[in-house]
């Protein structure tokens, strides 16, 4: 009989590179940096790791097939002759690395495993990543002209009309996340911005402008997972976190052709959240969660996420940011790390980096952006756009 994942998996160590235009680090250099920080944090020798999961979304951009298969972690981070699997699921890729690693531990097949999310996006020009990809790859003729910002912009068009959300609301999300990013040493952007700047920025895909979009970034993050029993032994100081719930949901890949799609939110997020909340036994997320890292690839997405994750009612996402509820000082801090807006979105790494943020919050290591008495945190990724979402809940 299938059981909830709650309290069956622990994370005993994590690491992360700085997220940014890491021109001087190769794909493998970043994997090494993240993995070895995790080994050190966990207090284990790399040799003790029995299996690995690598999350990379787009080996084409990294070049040299980097990240195409698990073998890339083998020599790089001393996982030679171990089972290493490369996973991918759009923007849920990073979380998939953790999720599958967690299943292996919960199944009792491995004791200590590593999950690494790693993505190199800036060895090619910024537009050559996602925008060009959709044109050069993808269906020969259907949907040409779609871009990542465009797909979310269409949601904004509807949200503005239906719920009265404004460009100013979007700008407030950007301002908040930049503020938080200043307080995160590993963020790509560490500079506050003013509301005016965001509002006056050139348009990319109406109504989204430059400051409504996350940057193109390189980065890697890693997590060491084990059973709670082993975690107690290895980390006698109790500095580890537990997986409380995980949910993943895939919906149709042709969302934009889906009759009846109202463009007011993402079923994938709603479903993934339901699954994770059920696992974790959460009934009132906004009351029970202390912090959340949500997928803010674009400012409108963060607003939609508030609603789809059940932090507020559908349509009230604009009010949520306006009232400061998701600010560091609010009652439901969202993206204390600075979010994708400040950290960027190296696709395969984001889910793991988000976990890193919650890990730090729960262990009191978040410095200037520490949330008092953080005990339960959520991470969320959304990809496709809209065809896959994942949610994970972590606690002590």
């Amino acid at each position: 009989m299938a059981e909830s994942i709650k309290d069956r998996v622990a994370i005993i160590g994590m690491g992360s590179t700085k997220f940014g235009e890491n021109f001087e680090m190769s794909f493998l250099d970043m994997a090494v940096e993240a993995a070895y920080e995790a080994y050190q944090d966990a207090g284990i020798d790399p040799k003790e790791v029995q299996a690995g999961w690598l999350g990379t979304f787009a080996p084409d951009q990294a070049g040299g097939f980097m990240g195409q298969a698990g073998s890339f972690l083998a020599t790089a981070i001393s996982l030679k002759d171990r089972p290493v699997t490369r996973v991918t699921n759009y923007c849920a890729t990073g979380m998939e690395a953790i999720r599958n690693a967690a299943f292996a531990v919960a199944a009792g097949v491995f004791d200590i495993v590593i999950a690494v999310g790693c993505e190199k996006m800036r060895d090619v020009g910024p537009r050559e990543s996602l925008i060009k990809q959709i044109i050069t790859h993808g269906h020969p003729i259907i949907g040409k002209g779609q871009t990542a910002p465009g797909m979310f912009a269409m949601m904004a068009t509807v949200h503005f009309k239906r719920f009265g959300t404004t460009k100013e609301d979007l700008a407030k999300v950007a301002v908040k996340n930049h503020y938080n990013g200043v307080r995160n040493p590993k963020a790509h952007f560490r500079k506050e911005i003013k509301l005016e700047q965001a509002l006056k920025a050139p348009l990319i895909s109406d109504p989204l402008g430059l400051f409504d979009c996350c940057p193109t970034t390189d980065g890697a993050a890693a997590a060491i997972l084990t059973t709670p029993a082993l975690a107690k032994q290895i980390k006698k100081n109790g500095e580890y976190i537990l997986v409380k719930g995980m949910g993943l949901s895939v919906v149709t890949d042709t969302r934009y052709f889906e009759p009846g799609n109202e463009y007011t939110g993402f079923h994938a997020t709603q479903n993934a959240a339901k699954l994770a909340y059920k696992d974790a036994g959460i009934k009132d997320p906004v009351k029970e969660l202390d912090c959340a890292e949500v997928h803010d690839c674009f400012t409108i997405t963060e607003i939609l996420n508030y609603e789809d994750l059940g932090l507020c009612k559908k349509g009230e996402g604009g009010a949520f940011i306006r009232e400061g509820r998701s600010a560091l000082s609010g009652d439901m801090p969202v993206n204390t790390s600075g979010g994708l807006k400040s950290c960027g979105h190296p696709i395969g790494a984001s889910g793991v980096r988000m976990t890193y943020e919650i890990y730090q919050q729960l262990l009191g290591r978040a410095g200037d952006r520490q949330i008092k008495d953080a005990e339960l945190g959520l991470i969320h990724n959304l990809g496709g756009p809209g065809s896959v979402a994942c949610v994970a809940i972590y606690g002590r």
Partner: protein
Amino acid sequence: MANNPVGIKAVGSYIPIQRIDRQVIMQAWEFPKDLAVMMVGERSMAHADEDVLTMSSEAVLNCLEGQEASSVDGLYFASTSSPYWEKATSSTLAVVADLRADIAVADFANSVRSSHMALKAAVDAVKAGSARNIVVAASDIRLNEPEYYMEAMMGDGAGALLVGQGGNIICEILDYCTVNQEFFDVWRKKEDSYLNYDDERFANLYGYLNVTKQAVQGLLKKSGLKPEDVSKTVAFAPHGAAYMALAKGSGPLAMSFNQDPLLMSVGNLGNASTFLQLALVLEDSSPGDRILLVGYGDGADVFLLRVTDGIKNLPKKRSIRDWLNSKKMFSSYAKYLKYREMLKLKEGIWPKDPFTSIAYLYREQKQDLGLHGKKCNKCGTVWFPAGRVCYACQTKDDYSDVKLSRRGKIVTFTVERAIPAPETPVGMTVVDLDGGGRFLTQFTEGNVDELKIGLDIELGLRKYHEAKGFNHYFWKSRPVR
């Protein structure tokens, strides 16, 4: 009317929305004042994403509205400006129009009179009983050397005639006369981008004015028709001056040159010229009217038409007047050169080398070119594109084929300002099509500022890009014209 007369059952037309005032071209080149007399009026201009195939698809679909596609036994396409030297356009049009596979398709190329050659062939086929109905489509985008005055004289457009037999024709094709002429008037070799001319005065005298006269005289003699019995003469003409000269020099027939040759509002439409002039003439015709349809190019020919009672029962559909009256003035000559790819741009105007596969496209042909979706037999949801399992109710392999409507309303949209395209910004629209089907596609032709939720749009076939050396066509949305 003779028993089972052969004639035209339906007419289709298409004129691009863009028009250029000839003064714009005059000023772009600072033409000398002696050309001013020719630089009046407007010419129509195909958009960057239009070509003779896309324009013809509009005309053919317009022509076949209200007609049984399954009863069409042939499609002939005429042009001097086909997209390919080897690869028929008629076969593509047949798929777009949902015609059967077991029909006769043919491309008639290489002459600006090819449309008439195709029409003659269609009439003969129907008369001989080897086809019940044949669609004849004609379109041209003929390029001239920039700075040559003829560039301003041309016009882009497409026309289509449904040739058939029986009681529901709107005009009979009674007679025909043709004169071959081995002659250099205007020509273009395979490697030439632009039309070539030599001695225009000679060509006008010994070519155009000469053989058209012979063909007309030949027809009048052959048919016994008297000039005063001709209601209208519809004639191809390279430009207004030549048309006037033809009319003046036609003696008693001069009175019948009393219709709009479209030269001032649209231009020299090449192969589509007489078909579109005829479309306009038929709107104001009466049963019994006799019309001469005069073609020129490598000789000349004339069809004698007689309007029937069927003209009173024309189906309600978009007419040539509707296309003519819906227009947008285009004022950038530089952009015109860019759209016609006459300027060599470093990056080109299309994205380089997108993924494509002939197998992939072949498999999806009916869906992508024919605009066919699937309707789930269990829950009734209409899907495009569609797989074998209904996304709504998960029923596998139980659906009906449906042709999607080309009309719909915008559900949501955005404006892309950072992607490669001939014209930026590019609107992207999600549309609910009438009768079912949700469609995501680029917006063309309209101003992106017009975009709003609920806007009425229609889909039209457009050229997207080239990949692996062949053109990729798909549907785009535009404001309803």
